[in-house]
């Protein structure tokens, strides 16, 4: 696995530029993911890789295409100091794990091997041995992620038919 590390305020326009929103299929979104901030990302990313961001990751537009594009690349999760709120709920709603953990962001460098336990929120930098605890999700949110997304959880609860 590889680490891709970016700074603060990674916005949805660089995660997936508007010029690609007219083709919202996963393959197309994945092929342009991060294009305006990291031209090599889409061609080098592999399943299981992790994105690290600073503060306010995913700010800007409400386009769910942004977490969809990252998820479609096979990225395992995004770890950031904080997330913009629409990106945060979009990721949860599509069942894509994101972790808020400033310590891990500062304590992980590109090239490190990292393991993540979504159940406990424990992040381990295997290269340095450092352990970090991400804020756990509230139960309600966990329910959504465990069902594989909002619509599936609403169906399971019998709220959506």
């Amino acid at each position: 696995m590889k680490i891709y590390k970016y700074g603060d305020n990674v916005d949805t326009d660089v995660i997936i530029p508007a010029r690609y929103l007219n083709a919202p299929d996963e393959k197309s979104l994945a092929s342009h993911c991060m294009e305006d901030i990291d031209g090599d990302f889409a061609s080098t990313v592999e399943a299981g890789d992790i994105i690290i961001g600073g503060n306010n990751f995913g700010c800007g537009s409400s386009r769910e295409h942004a977490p969809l594009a990252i998820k479609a690349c096979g990225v395992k999760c995004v770890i950031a100091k904080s997330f913009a709120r629409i990106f945060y709920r979009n990721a949860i709603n599509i069942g894509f794990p994101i972790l808020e953990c400033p310590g891990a962001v500062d304590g992980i460098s590109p090239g490190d091997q990292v393991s993540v336990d979504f159940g406990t929120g424990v992040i381990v930098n295997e290269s340095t041995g450092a352990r970090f605890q991400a804020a756990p999700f509230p139960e309600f949110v966990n329910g959504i992620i465990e069902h594989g997304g909002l619509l599936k959880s609403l169906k399971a609860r019998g709220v959506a038919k």
Partner: protein
Amino acid sequence: MGMTMTQKILARSAGLASVEAGQLIEGKLDLVLGNDITTPVAITEFEKAGLSSVFDRDKIAIVLDHSTPCKDIKSAQLCAACREFAKKHAITHFYDVGRMGIEHALLPEQGLTAPGEVIIGADSHTCTYGALGAFSTGVGSTDMAAGMATGLAWFKVPSAIKVNLVGKLSRYVTGKDVILHLIGLIGVDGALYQSLEFAGEGVASLEMDDRFTICNMAIEAGAKNGIFPVDDKTLDYLKGRVDREFTAFEADPDAQYTREITIDLSALRPTVAFPHLPSNTKTVDEAAGKPIQQVVIGSCTNGRLKDLREAAGVLRGRKVADGVRCIVIPATQQIYLDAMAEGLVADFIRAGAVVSTPTCGPCLGGHMGVLSDGEWAVSTTNRNFVGRMGPTSSMIILASPAVAAASAVTGVLTDPASL
């Protein structure tokens, strides 16, 4: 414990006597909105989940505004998918070319948003309707799909920052300058997960169009919503538009705020944001003189009648400078008609600007004014991110309509008072 205005609205929508910051609730929705970019993804999710019907065909609005009139085959296919869905589910408030406008100008104008209502939209600038004392917030396409099916959405109850407005705006200073000043002050994540609640004696002097502009850009400070108290100006605006009952909520006197900020409106100067963040603000006095190649006047932030009046006031009897393209986009058909009736459209065209049918177009680098390599634009839109309006080397300065118009006349960033 006292509740903020936002908390009171959310409590009622969740059927609870009270709520507090951080609490997760499920609220009943008064309106669910989507556009031609986010609705197709919502439709895919809706159908993939095997959902068969919408909760209330009168409480869904679908507006084809981003790439319309369609700019290419793919956007035409996305619009066709929206059209088909709207027809299948007999969606009452479906706005196609000829009836559409930019969603956040259109919905209030059509009376679809009222005080105390809870509105989600698969578009980040859905927070605009807080100007009317509604709770409205941007969500993604899955939320839209779930909202259309159930009439419900989950929310984390936000804490709030109180923004006290005192004094009165001076000439050539507008709602845009208020919100850019505030974002410059607190940063693009200064209100993350929080409400921006506006209050104070300065509110009364702000026109509704200024309040819409201010709430529109609450998201640029990371806020969940922006909200204004309901006063006589609000009620005036609602007259003839909203005939259903609504509730004007007020914050409790002992409501808790994480922070209080006072802005003296009379001390503000025209304010602009340089690339590549809306928080990268300067007053026009500090930044004037930067050469530009394009001016865009429009968008959900500044495409309303007051904005066009201010821009026309500057352009009337003057000419757009050689080497500058000035693009004016009224936000709705009604605003377009009003601007024609007042002679503003003629003012623009005589000055050498172009006037387009309502569309988001250049605001998101879609069409109708995409920038080329290394070009600079002054734009009344809301985002100046890398690549927002063109290639990654293009640059956007966010500004008010008056500053944008003045810059069109001189070809450099200009204080309208200096003309």
